């Protein structure tokens, strides 16, 4: 067993050194593509933070003052429900103080000043309204009506806040996903190519190995290890890049005036760590699987 492991690592290392240029190209490409994958996730998460209160076709939010009595809340609900033809009653949701506070924590991650002013006691509660009608004027007139109710602090319309961001988010998502998929493909192609070159350099050895009865797995594993290592090194580099990028972004956002909403674009550190772990796994898997397939393909030559 030990001799097999030692053998695999010795061969991997020798091959790495032999194909330094190709290896470097594969590592750099996989680093860049993985960085892009990571950035896609962070950007998306930022947009999700912005959009979290509008999830599920919510078009209107009625904010209720935190000191409203239960009967007053019930009255508001009654008014909203009085128009079942216009409002989807099945999807009408009420977020109490605790739920509203949880949501605010997501939205204001990057704005600790504002967040510290909020407490579960003082936060307004919310009705999330999903209209059945597509008639914007009608929805707007409803909003006007709700604004006049006692203890309603305000009514926000998706139209005003959400549409631009939503469109932007969709566009950015498409662009970054397409780019990262393309680059990841290039990275796998480069790893594939280094493995092919490595196998060509060792074709005499492979021929002898097959003749004396080495299994295909035995022959393949050093090459898979090589691909895995390339992907993993690419992954580590991309993590470094992502970390730096996120740091620059977070401190840049901190420079904005509080309360502009931009602060929602800050992503919590735990999420960044999760994404970095994912990049390492993707890098290692893509490298190992890509080179494993390449090795199988060229094992017959």
């Amino acid at each position, binding site marked *: 067993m030990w001799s097999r492991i030692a053998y695999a690592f010795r061969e991997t290392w020798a091959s790495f050194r032999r194909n330094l240029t190709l290896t470097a190209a594969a590592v750099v490409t996989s680093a860049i593509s993985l960085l892009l994958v990571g950035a896609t996730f962070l950007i998306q998460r930022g947009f999700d933070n912005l959009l979290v209160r509008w999830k599920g076709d919510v078009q209107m939010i009625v904010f209720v003052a935190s000191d409203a009595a239960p009967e007053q809340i019930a009255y508001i609900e009654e008014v909203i429900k009085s128009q079942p033809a216009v409002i989807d009653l099945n999807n009408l949701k009420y977020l109490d103080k605790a739920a509203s506070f949880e949501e605010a924590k997501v939205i204001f991650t990057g704005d600790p000043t504002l967040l510290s002013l909020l407490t579960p006691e003082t936060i307004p509660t919310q009705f999330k309204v999903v209209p059945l009608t597509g008639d914007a004027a009608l929805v707007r007139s409803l909003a006007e009506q709700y604004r006049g109710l006692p203890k309603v602090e305000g009514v926000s319309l998706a139209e005003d806040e959400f549409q631009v961001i939503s469109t932007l988010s969709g566009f950015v998502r498409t662009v970054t996903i397409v780019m990262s998929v393309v680059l990841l493909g290039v990275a796998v192609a480069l790893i594939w190519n280094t493995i092919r070159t490595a196998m060509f350099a060792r074709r005499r050895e492979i021929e002898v190995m097959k003749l*004396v009865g080495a299994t295909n797995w*035995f022959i393949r594993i050093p090459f898979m290890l090589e691909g895995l290592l390339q992907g993993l090194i690419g992954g580590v580099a991309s993590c470094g890049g992502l970390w730096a990028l996120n740091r620059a972004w977070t401190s840049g956002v901190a420079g904005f005036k509080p309360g502009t909403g931009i602060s929602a674009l800050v992503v919590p550190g735990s999420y960044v760590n999760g994404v970095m772990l994912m990049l390492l796994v993707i890098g290692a898997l893509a490298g190992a699987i890509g080179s494993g397939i390449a090795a199988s393909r060229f094992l017959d030559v």
Partner: protein
Amino acid sequence: MIRLDNVTKVYGTDSVAVRDVSFDIGKGDFVFLVGPSGSGKSTLLRLMNRQERPERGDVWIAGRNINELSDSRVPFLRRGMGNVFQDYKLLSNKTVFENVAFALEVIGKPRHVIRQQVPAVLELVGLEDKHDRLPDQLSGGEQQRVSIARAFVNRPLIMLADEPTGNLDPATGEGIMQLLDSINRSGTTVVMATHDHRIVNMMRKRVIQLDRGVLVRDQERGVYE
């Protein structure tokens, strides 16, 4: 030990390398495959260790039809067979010792087995004082001895030799033949392809002769005609 039943091998669509060949080689036999260049000798050897598969017919090794063997079992078939070639197929960046050890290493033999078996087989082929030489520091005959040592180190039941004396002068070739003969005497079945008349006539072993892929003669204690 080795049996071919009506074996036909076609390369491409119409290049018939071996046509309807049948023979049976017993355990411990020594057999020459003879015939002019291109008559199908190498193809027959490659059919015996599943480097090729026949279009028709069956190849039996030690009682098993190897054409029905799954790809993942083929390495284990080959561990019971040694291969020797005209061009030695040694790894030029490895020493004599390492070349032989390689064959055990890649089938997962532990180091203490390697340390014990490699010197023993190198002594058997008469290279006990050349462990640390590289192949290009050896004569042709010595290189072929290394390749025989590599083929034999795992004590295979069968040795397949494809023109092992083809690159050697007559005296050196004779030495290699004595080595193969002594391996055969230890119980290993040897099949050797050659078109070297002198060697076939000297050894007086069973001769299977091919002509354009067809078996034309199978004779005990034969000579090269």
